[in-house]
């Protein structure tokens, strides 16, 4: 055993020596996706290094909740990695405006992304792009196909069909109709409100209306979405008020519930843990409405640290990230994170393929509070969390919750003030 170790360590030393001798450049990626560490190390980075043997890339993630604070500290101290994983909208915009992220306007390959894809990592006037869009996440519903088969149910497409399915599951009594809790708040807001909402506020039309001040949270589609969410209350599991996001994932994986309001990133979790057939249906449309809208939220991108010592190698890596090859690799390695590239992508996972297929059937929009509206205090997104949870906990009526969110926005956002 000792001999083996000795041989191995000698080999290691030799290998490091060889690597150094070849004059390689090392790049470090900062990221919050510590769940994806093995995928980057085993799949994505080897594919890049095979083409560019003189660039050595290290994926160095931190915990999601600590990422923003840790990254800021590292950038201020000048110790951050060469490549920075970008949060959407204001957090990254702030980094660019402080001079920490380099402009990528002239990066070859940026033409492979559409305007919507780039919208999360561009200055308000559209003059500078500072991150290469990587992926978006789509909302919808994942269901337990075994339970649907057992109860003879079909995928609902309209709101009344949706409630018919829920009533049937509730009547049967064995399974929880909707697996969702309000403990973590964001689950109610993101998987609930932002999931079904775009159908009520007509996607981009409503979202842009909020930004220019012509739409309000307490009337029209945004209010209807709160009302629709409140109607879920009878179908949630016992004690849903104390149910966390992890509880929901576990409960659905264990087959305790039939329908799971999902973000597409949940697909890989259920693929790993659930031993039943999965199915997916998109957010049901209100009866009689022809058009459908989905939340296709630009979530993750990659930018370059303006202070990097290896700007050329970093740009080479970013350029590679714009290629269809990367788009295919990434989308298939991480089912549920859908590439924002215009390239044609073949997805192997049927549920992931179903999610991404909705892009061609429905109009896409992003979460309503992310662009511009979460710059002030109170934070619009955090208000939506509290309001969505309160509506489901029945501590506020939909009207009260909508008034609270609208009132918060009117405190500081000029286009919404005094109207």
């Amino acid at each position: 055993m000792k001999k083996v170790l000795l041989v191995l360590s000698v080999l290691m030393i030799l290998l490091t020596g060889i690597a150094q001798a070849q004059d390689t450049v090392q790049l470090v990626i900062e990221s919050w996706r510590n769940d994806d560490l093995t995928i980057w190390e085993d799949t994505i980075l080897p594919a890049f290094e095979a083409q560019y043997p003189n660039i050595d890339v290290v994926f160095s993630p931190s915990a999601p909740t600590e990422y923003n604070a840790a990254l800021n500290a590292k950038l201020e101290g000048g110790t951050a990695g060469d490549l920075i994983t970008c949060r959407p909208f204001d957090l990254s915009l702030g980094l660019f405006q402080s001079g920490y992220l380099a402009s990528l306007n002239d990066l070859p390959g940026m033409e492979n992304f559409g305007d919507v894809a780039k919208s999360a990592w561009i200055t308000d006037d559209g003059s500078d792009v500072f991150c290469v869009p990587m992926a978006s996440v789509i909302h919808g519903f994942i269901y337990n196909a075994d339970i649907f088969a057992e109860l003879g149910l079909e995928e609902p497409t309209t709101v009344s069909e949706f409630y018919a399915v829920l009533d049937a599951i509730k009547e049967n009594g064995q399974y929880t109709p909707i697996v969702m809790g309000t403990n973590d708040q964001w689950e109610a807001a993101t998987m609930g409100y932002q999931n079904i909402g775009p159908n009520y506020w007509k996607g981009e039309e409503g979202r842009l209306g909020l930004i220019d001040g012509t739409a309000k949270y307490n009337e029209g589609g945004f209010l209807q979405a709160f009302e629709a969410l409140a109607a879920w209350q009878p179908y949630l599991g016992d004690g849903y008020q104390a149910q966390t996001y992890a509880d929901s994932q576990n409960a659905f994986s264990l087959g305790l519930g039939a329908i799971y309001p999902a973000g597409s990133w949940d697909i890989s979790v259920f693929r790993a843990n659930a031993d039943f057939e999965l199915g997916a249906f998109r957010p049901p449309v209100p009866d009689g409405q022809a058009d459908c809208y989905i939340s296709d939220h630009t979530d993750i991108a990659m930018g370059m640290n303006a202070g990097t010592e290896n700007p050329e190698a970093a740009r080479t890596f970013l350029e590679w990230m714009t290629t269809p090859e990367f788009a295919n690799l990434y989308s298939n390695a991480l089912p549920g994170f859908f590439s924002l590239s215009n390239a044609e992508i073949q997805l192997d996972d049927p549920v992931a393929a179903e999610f991404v297929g909705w892009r061609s059937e429905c109009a896409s929009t992003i979460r309503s509070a992310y662009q511009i509206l979460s710059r002030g205090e109170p934070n619009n997104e955090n208000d939506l969390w509290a309001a969505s949870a309160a509506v489901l906990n029945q501590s506020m009526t939909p009207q009260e919750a909508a008034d609270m969110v609208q009132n918060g926005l009117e405190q500081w956002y000029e286009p919404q003030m005094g109207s």
Partner: protein
Amino acid sequence: MPSSRKPFPIHIVVFLAPAVIIYTLFMIYPLLDSLRLSLNTVDPATGNEVYAGLQNYQRLFTDALWQPRILGALRNNFVFFAIHMLVQNPLALILATLLSSRFIRGRTVYRTLIFTPSVLSIVLIAFIWRLILSPIFGKALFAPLGITLPPLLGEPATALPTLGLVSVWQWVGVPMMLFLAALIGIPDELIEAARVDGATGWGVFWRIKLPLILPTVGIVGVLTFVGNFNAFDLIYTSQTALANPAFSTDLLGTLFYRTFFGFQLQLGSPTMGATVAGVMFMIILIGVMIYMFTWQRRLLRNTVEL
């Protein structure tokens, strides 16, 4: 005439230096700097810190957005403290009195069992209790007993008291040990003399034991106070920094964390965070001073009179 002046006691300086230097560097300086930070604000135009006097404190207590948060956190913190004072410390005293009795068998076993939770990781404690009280996974425990548990950690009315009791469960061993050490230290002669004079068990406890361990009672009280107003970890691990549900478990510690570091899309504000920390410091300072100038002084006087 120059008397034989004692040389400057250099050894005192040498012995004090490590503690003074380390304490100053890592405790006093950061504390003062944090207080300084709370008197500054960030100029949005330049991004520089500028002196703002007590503006931040005024904003914290009068602004329509901050006021409900800080007052809520204060109120919750006092409730949290009250739970510990009314449940943890009397319980610890009862347990210590029982365990100091010579007529109870297996005292060391009980002592160890009761003390064990306080050496466990807080993350573990929060996780275990969340599982036990979870409406989904706790069913397996309570269903055989015929109990359907309400979502204790999910209702604004019950979440804080529940977490307070979890905290009591975890920490009751520490004051118990302090009381026990004080009780064991009471000379047997005093108790025997009281017995000879005809005092009952109750009488001995109220008139002999309790007065003699009063200094410990005071210390435990002040430790509970400081610990509770600095509390953060249990709420953070169990209810996240948002202090679910609906801020009903928000303590000054979690409010500070959200303000200073930011949460999700809300960016952190070091100056407002330092302001919340300043309020925490003031409260603890006032509490400890009350203790020093009333309780401890009276004890000192009593000792002198004795």
